[in-house]
């Protein structure tokens, strides 16, 4: 009975606020031009550059061990795809992460990609990111070309392989840089949850793959 009421409520919400629901979020990514301000205060509008094919956004938090573990890998990816038309950005969507804390994190983990503070969590909501680390490639039209993990080194929280055997984010970057479709556009990101200021809806299912 309660369940029926909940479903009815959700349906009402869906009708009233379609932008809040998961399925609608990626389309919303077209709404505004991308403007990203890094820790140094430099504002970038990457799509002003006509050679920019897509943005690669990786959501991180300074205290997420899995997100931190991937920083050396992300540094290498940043170097490999530096001039590929898919610029890489690190996004902090935890409102509690101060600029100072983010700067210390940059130094400790030798992060070379621009780091963006997303205190309003608008970037995370715009591309529907929920996990750190979660990698998202979004094109000029707002289409999500890739969403998910960096690679499959982690099989589950606390369960690692000896080495990654699927390099999904790398392969997606390579495909987008070459103008090819991404073969495996949705994988499951594993790690910590982005702490949204208010619960944005359903909540409990962590890191289920979502359709781009």
């Amino acid at each position, binding site marked *: 009975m309660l369940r029926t009421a909940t479903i009815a409520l959700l349906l009402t919400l869906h009708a009233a606020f379609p932008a809040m629901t998961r399925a609608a979020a990626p389309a919303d990514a077209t709404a505004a031009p991308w403007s990203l301000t890094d820790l140094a205060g430099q504002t970038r509008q990457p799509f002003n550059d006509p050679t920019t094919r897509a943005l690669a956004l990786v959501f991180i938090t300074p205290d997420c061990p899995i997100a931190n573990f991937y*920083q050396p*890998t992300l540094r290498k990816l940043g170097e490999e795809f530096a001039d590929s038309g898919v610029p890489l950005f690190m996004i902090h969507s935890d409102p509690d992460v101060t600029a100072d804390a983010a700067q210390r994190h940059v130094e*400790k983990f030798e992060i070379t990609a621009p780091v963006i503070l997303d205190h309003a969590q608008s970037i995370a909501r715009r591309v529907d990111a929920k996990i750190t680390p979660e990698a998202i490639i979004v094109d000029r039209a707002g289409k999500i070309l890739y969403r998910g993990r960096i690679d499959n080194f982690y099989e589950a*929280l606390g369960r690692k392989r000896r080495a990654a055997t699927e390099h999904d984010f790398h392969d997606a970057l390579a495909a987008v840089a070459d103008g090819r479709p991404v073969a495996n556009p949705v994988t499951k990101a594993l790690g910590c*949850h982005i702490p949204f200021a208010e619960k944005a809806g359903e909540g409990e299912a*962590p890191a289920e793959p979502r359709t781009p």
Partner: protein
Amino acid sequence: MHRLTFRPLAATAAALTLIIAGAVPRSAGANDEKPAAPTFNRDVAPIVFAQCAPCHRPGEAAPFALLTYQDVKKRADLVTAVTASRYMPPWHAEPIATAFHGERRLTDDQIELLRAWVDAGMPEGDAADLPPQPEFTPGWQLGQPDLIVQMSEEFEVPADGPDLYRNFAIPLGLTEDKWVRAVEFRPSAPTVVHHSLFFLDPTGQASREPGFARLSFEGAARRGRGQGDLGGGSNGRSLGGWAVGASPLPLPAGLAFRVPAGADLILSTHFHPSGTVERERSVVGIYFADKKPERSFTGVQLPPVFGALAGVEIPAGEKRYTKTDSFTLPVAVDAFGVNSHAHYLGKEMELTATLPNGEAIDLLRINDFDFNWQEQYQYEEFVRLPAGTRLEARVTWDNSADNPRNPSNPPVAVKWGRESTDEMGSVSLRMMPVDEADLELLQQSYRDHVRAAARERMSQRPAWRERLKRWIAASASNDEAVE
């Protein structure tokens, strides 16, 4: 078969509890009565303070603090997800009738309560309900150690790559034999140190051997077999170990390890890279007993010598490969600790006792063994096992491609050995004879068991004669016995 009797009962009880717990809010909702939603202060804080905060606080290994309502509210989604999957708190032994010391395991009801709290919108509740902030002892948990030693130099843990296993030999500088009742381990870089197993090299050879620390994995020193096989290996005498989240624990009932003069301490440490280069220089505190303990303990490992005599040959792709071994206790004992060992393919560990009256007791059950969590389990109370009790161990390996920990992709056939791509497998029970005078009979009986296993193995593989002789010699001096 007896040992199966109480398990379905426990499972049924747990399921019933869940059904009841789940049913309450629904029926209450139907009657328009507000169910009492759990609150942080009354319901959640006691769980978090007891089971999360010991590690999730500043300066400890866990990545963020869980000490306040705000801390937990902010991480609520993560907390419910990782408790539901039982990734957190880290605890790998299934619950058995006997409680383990420091059991960091949430009950099904506690996990359900955390979820219900999040579903209810994470109410903070009445401030009067909030228990006092947990107090933690700074520094050495067992008080000022009698001897403090440190790794002779830093070990650099790289920023990324697979997990690392390294042995470090530390001379203890003892000029006379000592009795050790506890060892406390303090990592200097807690974010990268996952666990450390402590061993003794009674000869003091390890610290004199250049390059010992560089040897990988089991760290078997190549020369002087029978003396050099140390970390995790067959005859390094165990002094227990430490893993993330564990608190140091003295042996019970005044028991102690004998540490001979001139011995080295070996730390067999597991590191997991954190994304940035870290440098570890562990500090170890050692607590001595004043005098030789009045009581002695010994260990029974099944199958013996970490499975070396069991003919472990796991075909490539084999999903469930099992070895069993059993041993009947000739005397009454009080069991107090249990641990198990395998490498990456280890999947399930089981040790049961069938008492002379037919009653079956689970002593250890691990359904998803993880090489990274080789914990030293100690029972909260002695488990009395009468003479004639049959101990039965079962080790199961998964050498299929489905096992994400499988170091070989595609899987290859694996035999017993010391390297990371070899396998071992055994369960060890630590026990004190009820009557001190029975110690020798108990040890002799176990040695006979090892010899019988060796003879059987030798009859199958005549060429192994020399190797087996060494292992038998090793096991006779091994078994963690007080001498």
